[in-house]
């Protein structure tokens, strides 16, 4: 099957393309990108006034399978992804059981093979049961197919264990993507420390809990000579540490979530438990720092940290509510509204952050660009479409989003995964 995407504005930072072009897809691969392609045997997709880009890659997603299929499954999560222009996701290992051995990786791979409608790459746990004690069989996990390791939700508390894990990751040509949080500091906290927490009388999670571990893990990565990707960076201090580390030549990359550049802790007023997330929504100053880091290259990746939770886990007291919000369906429009429309970054940079850089970090050479011979993972975007994010329209199995009811801008109109149309508006 061949598709010819005609007259779209192609944004392909890897090949420095930012112009109206045609894209020809042949089977599962991109055949070529050029002006005025003719291909009689291809089905034509009109992309006039649309943006055509490599499919978005979301490096940080909780698909909840196995174990919490009540919240999300590989099928529902990847459906939400393709409807939002996301053609590849990395799924986090904090499932039940955790993805902490090659057998679980294989079992999950089988579920993915049977049910996924987008590409799913597996992130394995760093330690058994994600409890920070015994390091997983990194070699076996890597052979079974994990792309990275993370105890997401927890930091590896013991620096010696973390150092060993970094060394093993290096040895096996993979990398760690740590969740940085010293739980002795964040303790029973439920929101960012500051004026708003004081007003609301809620227990605080000081920024120190995050940036002290960011600092520690970067130092350990330097010592191990290992690659490190810091998950969901949320505060100014963490950014300053990462910026300096990059300057010093340490092999560190970092991601930020749309909610950490779109919302401040002021949103917690009213006690909407959909605003409860870890790391917490921070102050205006931190949000501005995250945005700046996105534009100056300190942050490499935008990832949603899509974290589905059932109603019964959110319709409770703020203290008792689960941490996390869904994000697959709002990630792209929030980036358009808060980064592009504010003239902070260009479309080129956006595609870098949401496709090219994740592909590079994950070592997915055939993704993240529209180069000839690349995987035909493509998104066609209506950049100016305004739409209301309604609860009943949410594709994810869970509805825990603080953006429900908000008007968003920018939407996928066609999503192609591996040369097949996975979504069409």
């Amino acid at each position: 099957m061949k598709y010819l995407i005609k007259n779209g504005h192609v944004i392909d930072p890897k090949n420095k393309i930012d112009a109206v072009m045609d894209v020809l897809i042949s089977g599962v691969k991109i055949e070529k990108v050029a002006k005025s392609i003719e291909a009689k045997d291809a089905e034509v997709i009109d992309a006039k006034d649309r943006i055509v880009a490599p499919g978005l890659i979301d490096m940080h997603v909780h698909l909840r399978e196995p174990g919490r299929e009540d919240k999300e499954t590989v099928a529902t999560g990847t459906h939400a992804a393709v409807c939002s222009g996301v053609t590849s996701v990395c799924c986090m290992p904090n499932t039940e059981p955790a993805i902490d051995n090659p057998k679980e990786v294989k079992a999950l791979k089988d579920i993915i093979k049977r049910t996924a409608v987008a590409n799913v790459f597996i992130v394995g746990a760093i330690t058994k049961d994600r409890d920070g004690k015994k390091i997983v069989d990194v070699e076996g996990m890597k052979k079974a197919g994990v792309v990275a390791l993370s105890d997401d939700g927890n930091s590896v508390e013991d620096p010696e264990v973390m150092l060993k894990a970094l060394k093993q990751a290096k040895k096996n040509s993979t990398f760690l993507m740590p969740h940085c949080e010293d739980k002795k500091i964040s303790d029973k906290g439920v929101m960012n420390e500051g004026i708003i927490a004081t007003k609301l009388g809620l227990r605080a999670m000081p920024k120190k809990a995050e940036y002290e571990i960011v600092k520690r893990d970067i130092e350990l990565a330097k010592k191990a000579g290992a690659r490190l990707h810091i998950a969901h960076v949320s505060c100014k201090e963490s950014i300053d540490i990462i910026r300096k580390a990059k300057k010093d030549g340490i092999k560190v990359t970092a991601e930020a979530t749309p909610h950490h550049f779109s919302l401040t802790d002021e949103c917690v007023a009213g006690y909407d438990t959909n605003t409860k997330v870890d790391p917490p929504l921070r102050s205006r100053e931190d949000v501005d720092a995250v945005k700046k880091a996105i534009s100056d290259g300190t942050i490499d990746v935008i990832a949603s940290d899509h974290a589905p939770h059932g109603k019964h886990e959110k319709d409770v007291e703020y203290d008792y509510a689960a941490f996390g919000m869904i994000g697959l369906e709002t990630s792209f429009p929030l980036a358009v509204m808060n980064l592009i429309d504010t003239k902070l970054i260009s479309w080129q940079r956006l595609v870098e952050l949401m496709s090219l850089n994740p592909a590079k970090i994950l070592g997915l050479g055939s993704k993240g660009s529209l180069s000839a011979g690349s995987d035909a993972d493509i998104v066609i975007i209506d950049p100016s479409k305004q739409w209301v994010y309604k609860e009943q329209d949410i594709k994810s199995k869970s509805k825990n989003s603080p953006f429900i009811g908000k008007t968003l801008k920018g939407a996928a109109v066609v999503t192609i995964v591996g040369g097949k149309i996975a979504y069409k508006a």
Partner: protein
Amino acid sequence: MPEKLAWKRKDLLGIEELSKEEIELILNTADSFKEVTTRRIKKVPALRGKTVVNLFYEPSTRTRTSFELAAKRLSADVINIAVEVSSVKKGETLIDTGRNIEALMADVIIVRHNCSGAPYILSKSVKASVVNAGDGWHEHPTQALLDIFTLKSKLGRIKGLKVSIIGDIAHSRVARSNIWGLTKLGAQVTVCAPPVLIPPGMESFGVKVTNDLDEAIREADAINVLRMQFERDNVSAFPSRMEYFKAYGVTEDRLKGAKKHILVMHPGPINRGVEISAEVADGPKSVILEQVTNGIAVRMAVLYLVTHAQGGAI
């Protein structure tokens, strides 16, 4: 004649969201109910046929009793429900409990909860009026209202008064509600505590912050002394009750430098010899028991106003 302000809220969740006028309306309404509480027959039919439920997730004697009496003096039917906090997580959710209470045709749910914000979550899921009787560290609106009512009846005004709140500000809902109420009515508020008990960003509330008790007392027209709760896990920075008493305990000696007319308030229950000496608590400057008495009138006013707002036949 200016148009009389009508009460529009079905709930009383906090003082922060109230306007100066709304606070004054509650105080004025409480004034008329105060008269009722001094009658030989202390009862009016304002809430006859209404059902008021005290839903308490924390042990409380005085607040619950005060609300119960207030509701009974308005002729409402009152039910008390005490929920074991330890069973909450496995048991019925707050929202389910609220809806069940509502299914009993309750008109008002008075809720005391260990979690900040719980009354807000409850109010969104029930049509009944919700009155916050203290939520976590967040607010205790009726306590602040009765404190302000007491101040006003003793000193004749609130505007321009200097009020110092002394003690564990970080974990005190009484402090927060008082700060909102007093500053909205034009008082100057000082908070006084050891640094570990002053939460971040306190100055942004429009209050003065000091760690010096003598300074807090010197200029004050009134001091509100908070209960020190040593059972809290995160005040371990504070070694002993005796040390606290020495540095921050309000004693006759410490009050020597105070204004002659200074009022001493305390939301209770008192820890004698911890945050306040017995002599001061029982002495001529203390209005602690008047606060308790005024609490009934203030809570009658609140119950009257919130049920009135929901369009009940009153």
